[in-house]
């Protein structure tokens, strides 16, 4: 390979075009830049059978990703299971639920490995030796791990009060981790200043137009796994609000290049009530979100008070006929337990947000009970174990005696004789 299907970058507001460069905003109006593809050429180059013959990872859809040639970072990322969740569907009182399970994404157990592999492949193409990110945790883990494997130096800036496990799962990869006394939005502002001052490749700042495209592979995979079609409803957690728009874009791109017939699907955004700028905007019919200054929720990975893609996320929900909803911390923890007990999937707090919001939307009648629903689970519960400690039974402790064990099973089932 590889033919180059990227024309350059284009402002999402005014349409001004730019060459492929590490720049995230338009110098005319500060609008976000987006990758501009030659879809006609991609339609000719790509077919279902071509995709199906490739290894089961996100690069099956490489023509629709903005890298030149072969990926040099994250060659094994993606290709996560789409699980038919019948026991969860029964608990929610609906006919059909699927779970897109990025809790088992490789290598750092969240969907962020998808965006990072595109961003760091691109960082290498641009010749960066130092990369970094502002993160609520999952991105930190992913940038650190993938940078280590690629031999890049990494600076990771996170809010200082992040879960301990997310610090450890970043430091282990040798990254320089900096805890900043402030909210994610303050960390992000500082990183923007650092990225431009030092000329480093910050994945979610100056590499953002390329980085964000990696999220589309969640949507590409869902459509392929359903047999080259879209579901009727998708529920997506929102932090910066980028993922929901990229899954939507993925369905439309697949239709544009002829891999699916109909891209229609309703999009629902999920947030925690302790940080709900986007769902508040949707519920009030505002065009844009109003920032939340001090987010306060156990779903720390979603705690972005001033989401960069809030405006676009609102637009997607509004235009597809979807909706936005938010849930309390106890509802989040209970939903994590529900997903674990029904499907054997341990999602992080953000997954609890998604499941709890789906339940709420179903109960409100916004999502019909007889239609197909996909839930996007984006991160692994092993990273946020503290959130559910108080919602689970403590293990019984007994002496090694059959007599003490027997009362524990009393009434639950017939004893098995061997």
């Amino acid at each position, binding site marked *: 390979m590889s033919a180059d299907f990227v024309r350059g970058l284009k402002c999402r507001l005014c349409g001004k075009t730019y060459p492929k460069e590490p720049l995230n905003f338009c110098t005319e109006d500060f609008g976000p830049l987006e990758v501009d593809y030659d879809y006609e050429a991609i339609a000719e180059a790509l077919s279902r059978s071509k995709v199906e013959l490739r290894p089961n990872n996100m690069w099956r859809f490489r023509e629709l990703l903005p890298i030149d040639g072969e990926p040099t970072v994250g060659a094994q990322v993606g290709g996560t299971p789409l699980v038919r969740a019948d026991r969860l569907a029964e608990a929610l009182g609906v006919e059909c639920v699927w779970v897109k399970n990025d809790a088992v994404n490789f290598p750092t157990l969240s969907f962020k490995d998808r965006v990072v592999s595109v961003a760091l492949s691109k960082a290498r193409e641009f010749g960066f030796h130092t990369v970094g990110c502002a993160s609520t945790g999952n991105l930190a883990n992913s940038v650190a791990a993938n940078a280590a494997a690629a031999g890049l130096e990494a600076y990771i800036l996170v809010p200082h009060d992040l879960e301990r496990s997310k610090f450890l799962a970043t430091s282990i990869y040798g990254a320089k981790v900096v805890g900043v006394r402030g909210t994610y*939005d303050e960390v*992000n502002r500082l990183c*923007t200043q650092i990225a431009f001052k030092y000329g480093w490749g910050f994945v979610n700042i100056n590499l953002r137009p390329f980085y964000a495209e990696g999220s589309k592979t969640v949507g590409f995979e869902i459509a392929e796994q359903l047999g080259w079609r879209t579901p009727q409803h998708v529920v997506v957690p929102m932090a910066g609000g980028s993922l929901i728009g990229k899954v939507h874009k993925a369905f439309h791109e697949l239709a544009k290049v002829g891999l699916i017939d109909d891209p229609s699907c309703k999009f629902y955004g999920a947030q925690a009530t302790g940080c709900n700028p986007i769902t508040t905007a949707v519920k009030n019919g505002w065009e844009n979100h109003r920032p939340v200054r001090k987010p306060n929720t156990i779903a720390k990975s979603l705690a972005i008070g001033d989401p960069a893609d809030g405006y676009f996320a609102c637009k997607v929900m509004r235009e597809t006929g979807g909706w936005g909803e938010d849930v309390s911390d106890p509802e989040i923890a209970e939903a994590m337990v529900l997903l674990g007990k029904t499907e054997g999937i341990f999602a992080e707090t953000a997954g609890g947000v998604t499941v709890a919001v789906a339940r709420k939307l179903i109960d409100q009648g916004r999502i019909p009970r007889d239609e197909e629903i996909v839930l996007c689970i984006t991160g692994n519960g092993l990273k946020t174990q503290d959130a559910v400690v108080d919602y689970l039974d403590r293990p019984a402790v007994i002496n090694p005696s059959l007599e003490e064990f027997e009362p524990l099973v009393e009434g639950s089932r017939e004893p098995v004789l061997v």
Partner: protein
Amino acid sequence: MSIRIQIPTPMRQHTEGKAVVEVSGATVQGALDALNSQYPGISSRLFENGQVRRFVNVYLNDEDIRYLDGLATPVKDGAELAIIPAVAGG
């Protein structure tokens, strides 16, 4: 009254390459107007219909002006204003 305004790298084409521009003004609006009188044309990039554009954030001494009094926020001598693109993160 001297207020330092930080200009983000890709916008410096509009400020003759300067990273920091010193102006005077009593409010954030006044300081940004003064910036525009030194470098005509920069206002149209920062403002739309008299409001700061959707994807621009302005910080006064590291605090987002949306949490203060917006453009009407008073500024003191020696204050630092930073213009920072909002399309980052997530």
